[in-house]
């Protein structure tokens, strides 16, 4: 290559379409095609592998040795080189033609009808014809029309054609459907939709108007999918207001099975494309046929024949049938000249737009396959382009002016890449491939071009131009493009990244070795030159790359100016690490699985996002490897030795398990969904690690039983060593700043539970020790006098066994496990246990609200906080409710004793009085059953204590103090006393009632006052009588 010249010449040489290259560059870059298929009948994609060279076709058909009428169609996919081949035929034939042969070449130009008409008008053969009317019409047709106006004309002409369809066309619609279709087209929303960029009207317009920017091989037709109405489109129609007929049509085209109708409509409308284009271009249907017939007549008159080359028949869109009629008309005994036509077109165009009668009249089909070049043809193609851009224009012109003889083909003087690879071309010439190697051409052709794009057009556009540009403008950083490498040699990858610390440089070197080199992790010395991955060390040095040490080999394959070093034949019976060959070979499907995953991983390492939400395919393989990484890390890290409780590990493990889990232990950077405790950066090092896990699963069936497992075992363990601290940190952290403290929440909640459940009944936390937490206590929450709020809280705590789960958390957190599962014997981490209990007690079971980790990504840790939250959010209400109940109860006691300080003695005194009361009742034979006071007497101490407990907290604000005061159910404890008081009060009342009743039985029903008067009289009589007796004495 000569970079100085190439910088000026690149843009003019590298033209994806032959039509735009200069004649000199066109000839200088031509590579003879040897893979052409000859057919008598059209086949969309021929299956025949019987190939004919362009040279044979030229001699047999283009030269037309029999001087016969012929119509040859050259077809193939877009970009396969149809135009190039036809242009090549035309150039050669122009030099070889007999004197009486006129050669007319219609180039594709911009591939529009107007462009083609303009070309025709410029031809002397057309200007000479006598029919000036047609010439005038064609001249008008080629005049420019504003884009919007022309598009609208096209659109409305279709409506006109539908309206005026008198069933003369092959495909017919009934009257109702035609009316609906017209209404549909008249709808404003549909109008805009059809006229949109990339829509059918633009496709048709692009074939009529000049300077349109669409793919040259676009076919000017409606497609069925143009008629499929999406929900959004329908909504837009509705909002804008749709005619009922249009609405009906739209609904038909929205249905699941709408494609059949859509195809019918598109086929129907495509019948009008030709007439619409003609009308919009302002030409008459017969004009083109007439022009060509006039040319033939004129040539006949002067005794000449015509060979016509049309690069692309689609440039006659709209008049193609008329054209074909004119070209297929045999001269026989008529006064028109013999015509030999060579016409290019795509498979799709021939298939869709050539009528059957035209297809049948084609003399010869020449099919150009996608992969038109064999390997050497491919190298030559690239070599000729490199050569052309490294030659000054005048040298090429000189060669062209001297008939462009192959033997005199100019070869540039190599300024850069003298020691690179060369390709032999005829006449003993050699072309330097710099900056390509054969490996790079092969690789890029296979992997950078998609299937169907492995054609000259894309080789130029996607391989030659970008690589050469990269060299010209990024020489010190070549190759700078981030290629999505496939078939990654992981050994080579590792060795490069292991030896080059600068990751970007390592990526570049690895890419260079993988694409330009032989992608082997080997080096060898041949003829005093050391080859690294098949490339001589001086090449690395030229590009400023470090020389990496690879595995030493005795021989290998590599580039050499010429000839190439013979490829190495690998020794049999030993694997890469010299392992015994009895380890089973890797089945191809497993290797493919790894390779497929590597394609995705390479894209990922190059910065592309990766979607791991699917379980199948390459993503599924990577997803499984990610799960395996998580499992391995859980197993390999000594959690307890790192100060992490196995209970925390179990909770994290539960949260990362299962498909629904959005948080995994390991996530990949740039993964489209989900996250992880540790995010594996998108780089080559990570790619190696993932590969190791894939091989362990796929190659070893989840074992190390496979060739190369030694390397993977090293990769995985050394990676674990590197990231262990980060993983441990991530697992022990709630967020970036705070550690998880769920055990404090769990212990606090458990303490609340012990209090609320009546298991811990003391009035201070002092004695709430590990015993209480680990011992089983009898639940004392049945038949209590607690408030509804208290009982409701207990019910909440028991929902879904939350209390039991929390208790288990506390028990397991401090259990020092051997292995990952709890055994029969609990060995306590006594130091941490007492530390945690102490902290909870010191904080009086309070955790600041802002420290609640209620959005912890680990559900089971979050559940602990939720459980505590359920408690603490209710305890104030519970405490208040307890106070209310206690107040009512204790007031009876206070009233009874007329005091709020009731001691044991007071109760004792009360009991004495009560007993006396019942004794008198008994003696006075009042019918009231005596109440036993034994119940109160036995519990006198507890009752006195309960009264005291209640009295102490009636004015208390601290819920914990209140809860602890009521933990022992003091209201329940004083119930016997309250019952007694109530009963005695009731009995006193009853006694009074009975006394009153008895009194009434003594005589009348006088009132008490009256009865006082009554006795007064008797007393007065007695007193008087006594006075009498006294006198008598």
């Amino acid at each position, binding site marked *: 290559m000569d970079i100085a010249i190439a910088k000026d010449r690149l843009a003019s040489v590298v033209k994806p379409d032959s039509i735009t290259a200069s004649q000199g560059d066109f000839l200088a870059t031509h590579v003879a095609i040897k893979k052409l298929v000859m057919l008598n009948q059209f086949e969309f994609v021929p299956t025949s592998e019987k190939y004919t060279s362009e040279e044979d076709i030229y001699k047999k058909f283009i030269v037309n040795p029999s001087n016969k009428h012929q119509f040859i169609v050259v077809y193939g996919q877009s970009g396969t080189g149809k135009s190039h081949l036809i242009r090549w035929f035309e150039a050669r034939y122009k030099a070889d033609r007999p004197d009486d042969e006129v050669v007319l070449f219609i180039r594709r130009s911009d591939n529009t009808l107007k462009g083609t008409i303009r070309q025709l008008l410029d031809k002397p053969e057309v200007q000479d014809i006598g029919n000036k009317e047609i010439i005038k019409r064609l001249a008008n047709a080629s005049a420019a029309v504003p884009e919007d106006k022309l598009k609208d004309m096209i659109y409305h002409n279709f409506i006109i054609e539908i309206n005026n369809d008198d069933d003369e066309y092959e495909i017919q619609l009934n009257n109702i459907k035609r009316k609906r279709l017209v209404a549909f087209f008249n709808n404003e929303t549909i109008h805009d939709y059809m006229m949109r960029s990339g829509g059918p009207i633009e496709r048709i317009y692009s074939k009529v108007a000049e300077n349109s920017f669409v793919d040259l091989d676009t076919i000017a037709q409606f497609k069925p999918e143009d008629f499929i109405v999406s929900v959004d489109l329908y909504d837009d129609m509705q909002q804008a207001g749709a005619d009922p007929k249009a609405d009906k049509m739209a609904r038909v085209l929205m249905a699941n099975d709408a494609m059949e109708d859509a195809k019918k409509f598109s086929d129907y409308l495509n019948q009008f494309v030709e007439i619409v284009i003609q009308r919009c271009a302002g030409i008459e249907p017969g004009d083109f046929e007439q022009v060509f017939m006039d040319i033939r007549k004129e040539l006949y008159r002067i005794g000449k024949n015509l060979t016509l080359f049309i690069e692309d028949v689609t440039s006659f869109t709209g008049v193609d049938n008329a054209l074909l009629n004119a070209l297929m008309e045999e001269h026989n005994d008529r006064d028109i000249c013999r015509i030999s036509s060579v016409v290019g077109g795509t498979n799709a165009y021939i298939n869709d737009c050539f009528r059957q009668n035209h297809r049948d009249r084609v003399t010869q089909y020449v099919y150009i396959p996608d992969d038109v070049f064999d390997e050497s043809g491919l190298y030559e193609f690239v070599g000729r382009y490199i050569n052309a851009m490294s030659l000054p224009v005048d040298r090429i012109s000189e060669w062209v002016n001297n008939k462009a003889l192959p033997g005199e083909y100019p070869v540039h003087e190599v300024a850069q890449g003298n020691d690179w690879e060369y390709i032999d071309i005829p006449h003993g010439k050699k072309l330097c491939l710099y900056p390509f190697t054969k490996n790079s051409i092969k690789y890029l052709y296979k992997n950078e071009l998609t299937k169907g794009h492995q054609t000259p057009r894309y080789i130029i556009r996607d391989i030659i131009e970008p690589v050469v540009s990269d060299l010209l403008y990024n020489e010190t950083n070549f190759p700078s493009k981030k290629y999505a490498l496939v078939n990654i040699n992981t050994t080579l990858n590792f060795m490069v990244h292991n030896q080059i610390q600068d990751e970007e440089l390592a990526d570049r070197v690895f890419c260079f070795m993988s694409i330009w080199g032989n992608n082997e992790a080997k080096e060898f010395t041949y003829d005093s030159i050391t080859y690294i991955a098949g490339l001589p060390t001086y090449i690395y040095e030229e590009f400023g790359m470090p020389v990496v040490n690879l595995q030493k080999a005795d021989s290998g394959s590599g580039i050499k100016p010429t000839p190439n070093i013979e490829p190495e034949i690998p020794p049999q019976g030993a694997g890469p690490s010299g392992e015994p060959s009895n380890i089973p070979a890797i089945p191809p499907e497993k290797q493919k699985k790894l390779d497929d995953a590597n394609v995705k991983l390479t894209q990922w390492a190059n910065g592309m996002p990766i979607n791991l939400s699917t379980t199948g395919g390459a993503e599924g393989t990577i997803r499984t490897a990610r799960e395996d990484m998580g499992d391995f890390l859980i197993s390999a890290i000594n959690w*307890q030795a790192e100060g992490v409780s196995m209970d925390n590990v179990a909770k994290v493990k539960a949260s990362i398990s299962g498909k629904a889990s959005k948080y995994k232990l390991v996530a990949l950077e740039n993964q489209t969904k989900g996250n992880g405790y540790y995010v594996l950066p998108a780089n080559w090092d990570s790619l190696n690690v993932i590969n190791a896990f894939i091989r362990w699963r796929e190659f070893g069936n989840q*074992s190390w039983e496979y060739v190369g497992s030694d390397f993977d075992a*090293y990769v995985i363990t*050394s990676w674990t060593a590197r990231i262990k601290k980060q993983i441990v940190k991530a697992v022990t952290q709630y967020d970036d700043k705070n550690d998880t403290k769920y055990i404090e929440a769990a212990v606090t909640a458990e303490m609340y539970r012990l209090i609320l459940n009546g298991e811990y009944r003391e009035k201070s936390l002092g004695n709430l020790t*590990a015993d209480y937490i680990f011992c089983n206590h009898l639940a004392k929450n049945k038949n209590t006098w607690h408030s509804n709020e208290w009982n409701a809280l207990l019910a909440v705590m028991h929902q879904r066994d939350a209390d039991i789960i929390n208790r288990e958390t506390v028990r397991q957190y401090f259990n020092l496990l*051997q292995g990952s599962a709890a055994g029969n014997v609990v060995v*306590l*981490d006594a130091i941490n246990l007492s530390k945690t209990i102490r902290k909870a007690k010191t904080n009086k079971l309070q955790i600041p609200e802002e420290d609640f980790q209620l959005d912890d990504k680990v559900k089971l840790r979050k559940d602990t906080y939720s459980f505590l939250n359920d408690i603490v959010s209710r305890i104030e209400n519970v405490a208040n409710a307890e106070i209310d109940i206690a107040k009512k109860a204790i007031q009876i006691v206070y009233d009874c004793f007329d005091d709020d300080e009731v001691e044991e003695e007071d109760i004792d005194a009360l009991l004495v009085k009560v007993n006396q009361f019942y004794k008198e009742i008994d003696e006075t034979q009042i019918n009231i059953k005596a109440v036993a006071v034994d119940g109160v007497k036995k519990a006198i101490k507890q009752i006195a204590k309960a009264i005291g407990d209640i009295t102490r907290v009636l004015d208390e604000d601290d819920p914990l103090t209140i809860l602890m005061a009521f933990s022992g159910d003091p209201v329940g404890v004083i119930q016997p006393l309250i019952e007694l008081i109530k009963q005695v009060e009731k009995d006193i009342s009853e006694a009074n009632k009975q006394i009153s009743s008895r009194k009434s039985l003594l005589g009348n029903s006088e009132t008490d006052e009256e009865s006082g008067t009554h006795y007064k009289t008797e007393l007065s009589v007695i007193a008087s009588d006594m006075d009498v007796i006294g006198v008598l004495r």
Partner: protein
Amino acid sequence: MFQNKMVTPAIPERVYTLCKIVGKKAMSTSEVKEKMEPSYLNQKSSYYNDYRNAAEELQLITVTDNVLSVAVDASVLKNMDTMRSYINGQLNQFREGQFYKVTKAYFDMGEEILHGEQNVANMASLMTLKTGISVDSMAMRAWRFWASYLGFGYLQDMFVIPNADTFLQDIISEAEFEKNKRYSIAEFLEKLRPHSDIIIDSSNGTKKFSFGVSNGLRTLQDAGAIRMEYILDQEDTWNLYHVDALSANETVTNITVLK
């Protein structure tokens, strides 16, 4: 555990907790037991003696008249890493014990260990054969906990992938190499002895590091802890285990301890 038979209950974390309890104050054996396996748990059996014996074997504690006292400096019990480093310096005393012999045999098997049984419990008969002493599956289960903790490898379920990076790092630290000084491989290995004998056999003349030791040295080099070099014309050369991808630097003549 280290002198004789390996037992599963004597896991490092229990030994460490026991030592920390005793580290606060000397306690009777029953008091320590009551802290770690309190009677209120009403457990039918106890592991206490197993981990207490392990702590005693390792001379982390002494037991006199049933009173347990710490026998090491407080810095040894600062955390489990410091305890590990201490224990790795003690292993040489247990050359005849199961743990030492099994670890040595495991490493001697080299890469071959990857291609066979991948559950250590099922390697008992193999280890009996390799060590010449009786090793049962329970002992192997116990071995994995300590092999993993002491840094001889990475636990993958019931398998230990040999990579002695942590063990080597501990004994390198213990050997007090001068930082950034290039030692010949012979000097380097000599300074590591006798602690390194458990996994590096300098006497057999092969001068090849086993798979697990090579993994460890390479991991330490990756972490920037050491630098291994091959310098021409050096008398003594050792070879790391050959792995294709790592073969470029498998001959070592000098090692520099970097941190």
